[in-house]
């Protein structure tokens, strides 16, 4: 049997006296698409942020491609090169143009030449359908465009795995679709991804597995068909009834 | 142990930095401490009592009174002490939790003239002490406190003027503020000490200290005005409108509604201005006055105590540092307590 690309074992995380993660076990196989959902404050962001070392855990173990994230800064850096991340607030670098945003990490961290990096940038901007915006500054773009640039920026590192933390939550309704489409296309291309989202349409369409988190624990873990039709736990049912009302 | 590994020795670059800095610290601090403390001379009364090769603190101890009081007659120095106590009480009142600001202000407004009369001796039947005898830390404090006391009303008027709706007032206040902020204090002091006498009728003379004070307070007033203006800008429009709705006129609105709030906002900024002014008073030595630094500098040329520049400067630095650092902590403290500047 193949090794999972991400393996989370008994991870605990405290913020002061507040426990954000309480013993999480999760494996992600290559090519798998996982959607993480759950009520606000349940620890979804904390979980994905632990997966690329933005948050350090207090107990447990996470390995990405067999590299232990607890293995010091060199290990973390190696993991981050193969894991892309997209944030709720985009976090584009406002003082750099779109193209510079895309080229910064490939040149500085992968050692690509400027010309190669620019070529890559063009390629991924096309992939997110905004090749014409390369020369603009982030604040001159709409929210949906900014988030697509953020996705392209992560893709420029040609990561093996993509993490999304509520990529559409900060967007106006009319822009959500353009971002969801890009994510769905990536999924269709076979990218391994872990996506925190409340967009149940997206979950249904692309997820191999849905993970439901509450109070820092995995309450339910099932393929979408099962998850939506026959949720096992009451908490899941409650959550689904609230979120699917509209 | 694990703390040290994480913060000092993680990775070879980090370790190298630690070792390098540690080496420099030891290399610099050990001889300094040896000089300043372990092989220093503390007892004696003459230059020859300093023979160990370390710092000669005998000189500072011998001169201590002069560094504090300047040439103020020895028999009258109690007046300086009383003045200092008055000032301390006034300042403490401001920061005692149970005393209202108004009471503290009234006390301060009384203490200032009383202190001045006490020091000069005019009108109390005490022997008069000419200001040219004032010196040392006492003069430094007088310059700072009196300079501020004179600057404060000027600053409030300038700050209000800069926000006035009358163009003439606004432009002239702005120009006045920017003029003093654009030139070095030393030129202001030169101006006050050389030009001021030219403006006055023949025969009338202004005391040198007073001239310096005028220069200092014009200069400090401009900086204070900008600090206060910052506070005024932070007051929401609603406050003005509420006051207007209550039928208060401009001055009443300012005095009872706006200024009390604005000044509370800018206490940290005010303290920082006080620190800057306290350090800046050293410049009066260039126009021939003997403030704390001035009197130490002058004593370095004393034939009996030659070659003690390091001791003099280290002592002066220690005193200035303690006071300025103390004030800066106070400012941070106020800032955190009021919470105005957070968020």
């Amino acid at each position, binding site marked *: 049997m193949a090794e999972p690309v991400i393996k989370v074992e008994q991870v605990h995380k405290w913020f002061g006296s507040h426990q954000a993660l309480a013993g999480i076990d999760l494996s992600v196989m290559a090519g798998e698409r996982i959607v993480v959902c759950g009520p606000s404050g349940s620890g979804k962001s904390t979980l994905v942020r632990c997966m690329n*070392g*933005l948050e350090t855990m207090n107990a447990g173990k996470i390995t990405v491609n067999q590299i232990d994230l607890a293995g010091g800064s060199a290990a973390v*850096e190696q993991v*981050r*090169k193969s*894991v892309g*991340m997209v*944030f709720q*607030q985009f*976090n584009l*670098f*406002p*003082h*750099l*143009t779109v193209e510079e945003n895309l080229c*910064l*990490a490939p040149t*500085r*961290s992968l050692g690509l030449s*400027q010309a190669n990096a620019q070529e890559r940038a063009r390629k991924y901007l096309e992939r997110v359908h905004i090749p014409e915006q390369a020369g603009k*500054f982030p*604040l*001159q773009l709409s929210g949906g465009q900014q988030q697509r640039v953020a996705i392209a920026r*992560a893709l420029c590192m040609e990561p093996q795995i993509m993490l999304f933390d509520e990529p559409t939550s900060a967007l106006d309704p009319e822009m959500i679709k353009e971002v969801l489409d890009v994510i769905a296309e990536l999924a269709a291309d076979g990218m391994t991804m872990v996506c925190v989202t409340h967009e149940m349409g997206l979950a249904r369409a692309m997820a191999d597995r849905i993970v439901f988190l509450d109070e820092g624990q995995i309450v339910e873990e099932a393929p979408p068909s099962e998850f939506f039709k026959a949720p096992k736990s009451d908490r899941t049912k409650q959550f689904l009834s609230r979120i699917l009302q509209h | 142990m694990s703390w040290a590994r994480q*913060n*000092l020795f*993680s990775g070879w670059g*980090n370790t190298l*930095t630690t070792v390098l*800095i*540690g080496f420099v*610290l030891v290399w610099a601090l050990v001889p300094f401490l040896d000089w300043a403390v372990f092989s220093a001379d503390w007892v004696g009364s003459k230059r020859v009592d300093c023979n160990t090769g370390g710092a000669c603190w005998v000189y500072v101890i011998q001169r201590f009174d002069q560094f504090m009081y300047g040439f103020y007659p020895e028999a009258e120095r109690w007046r300086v002490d009383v003045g200092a106590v008055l000032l301390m009480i006034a300042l403490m009142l401001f920061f005692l939790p149970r005393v209202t600001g108004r009471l503290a202000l009234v006390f301060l407004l009384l203490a200032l003239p009383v202190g001045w009369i006490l020091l000069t001796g005019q009108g109390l039947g005490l022997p008069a002490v000419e200001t040219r005898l004032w010196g040392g830390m006492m003069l430094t404090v007088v310059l700072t406190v009196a300079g501020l006391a004179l600057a404060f009303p000027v600053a409030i008027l300038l700050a209000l003027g800069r926000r006035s709706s009358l163009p003439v007032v606004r432009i002239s206040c702005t120009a006045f503020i920017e*003029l003093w902020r*654009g*030139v*070095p*204090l030393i*030129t202001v002091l*030169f*101006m006050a000490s*050389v030009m001021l006498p030219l403006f006055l*009728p*023949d025969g009338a003379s202004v005391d040198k200290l007073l001239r310096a004070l005028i220069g200092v307070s014009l200069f400090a007033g401009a900086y204070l005005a900008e600090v206060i203006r910052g506070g005024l800008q932070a007051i929401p429009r609603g406050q003005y409108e509420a006051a207007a709705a209550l039928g208060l006129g401009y001055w009443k609105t300012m005095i009872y509604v706006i200024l009390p709030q604005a000044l509370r906002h800018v206490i940290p900024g005010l303290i920082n201005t006080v*620190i800057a002014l306290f*350090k*800046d008073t*050293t*410049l009066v*030595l*260039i126009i021939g006055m003997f403030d704390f*630094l001035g009197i130490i*500098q002058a004593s370095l040329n004393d034939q009996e105590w030659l070659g003690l*520049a390091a001791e003099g*400067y280290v002592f*002066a*630095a220690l005193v200035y*540092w303690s006071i*300025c*650092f103390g004030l*800066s902590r106070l400012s941070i403290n106020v800032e955190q307590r009021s919470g105005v500047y957070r968020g």
Partner: protein
Amino acid sequence: MVAVAVVIAGAVWLFGNTLDNLANRGIASGFSFLKSTAGFGISTSLIDFSEASSIGRAFWVGLLNTLLVSAISVVLATILGFAIGIARFSKNWLLGRVATVYVETLRNIPLLLQIFFWYFAVLRALPGPRQSYDLAGWFFLNNRGFYIPKLEIIDGGGWVLLGAVVMAFLAFWQCRHKGISRSCAGLAVLLFISLLAVGSVSVPALTGFNFTGGTVLSPELVALVIALSSYTAAFIAEIVRAGVQSVPRGQIEAADALSLPDKDRMRFVVIPQALRVIVPLLTNQYLNLTKNSSLAAAIAFPDLVSVFAGTVLNITGQAIEIIGITMAVYLTISLTIAFSMNIFNRTTAMRGLSS
């Protein structure tokens, strides 16, 4: 109306007093004193000056010295200040502490005291030329000053150099746009060769009781530069710290998620955005430094205040004109710095931040 009348009456009264006083003391007025002979020498001067030169020329000597001290100190203070400000965020605990102690010590001690310390307790207390501190055989430090090598250029060589500099500058702009590093390097080499062709380096050397060759920076200049730049650096470090802290956490997390190395994260992500906060405050520090350079008067370094508002004022007694000119010069410098930093702010620091 009454107020205006009082102000005018007051002005007239002061003006009358002043005229009387000037007449009584036999002080001339007007600016003709600028043309008269100085009759005093100046120790440090960037342009030729002797006792026979005019007072107007003494003014320029002082002004140039002020600008020289300020320019050197601004550069040093900026470098030191940024280094210390960034060091306060170091992962190394010791380095962070040392940086904090530096800032808290230097900014709480009066600048004048620091100038005195460096001048009287350090530089003047150095050994004589024969026991100089020798740095690599090129630099020498003793109680006469700091001896450094000097670039000597043959006649007409200046034009060659100027041409080379202009070409290198143009090439630099080209490189920035096109990223051709080879032509850039080529021009640097060209510049270097032309330097070798027209210039030679004169190294100071001890001959007898003193040094010849090279050039010497006076102890006054050195003390002033050290004090001004180390003092201002403490304030700049605080500003840099505030600027860095103003950069949102998300920016740092994004850089981390992209596995940008720490130093690149600082250089390409944090600092450029911190500049938005830093630049206006930095402008203030540059202005303060320039104004503080007038403390030169206290150790008799011939800056503008020392030469003009000091020596010249003593000789001519024309206080009003001299103080007026001096203040006007500082105001001009202040406005110029504020203006050019404004431009820098608009074109560089605010890049991409105003849509």
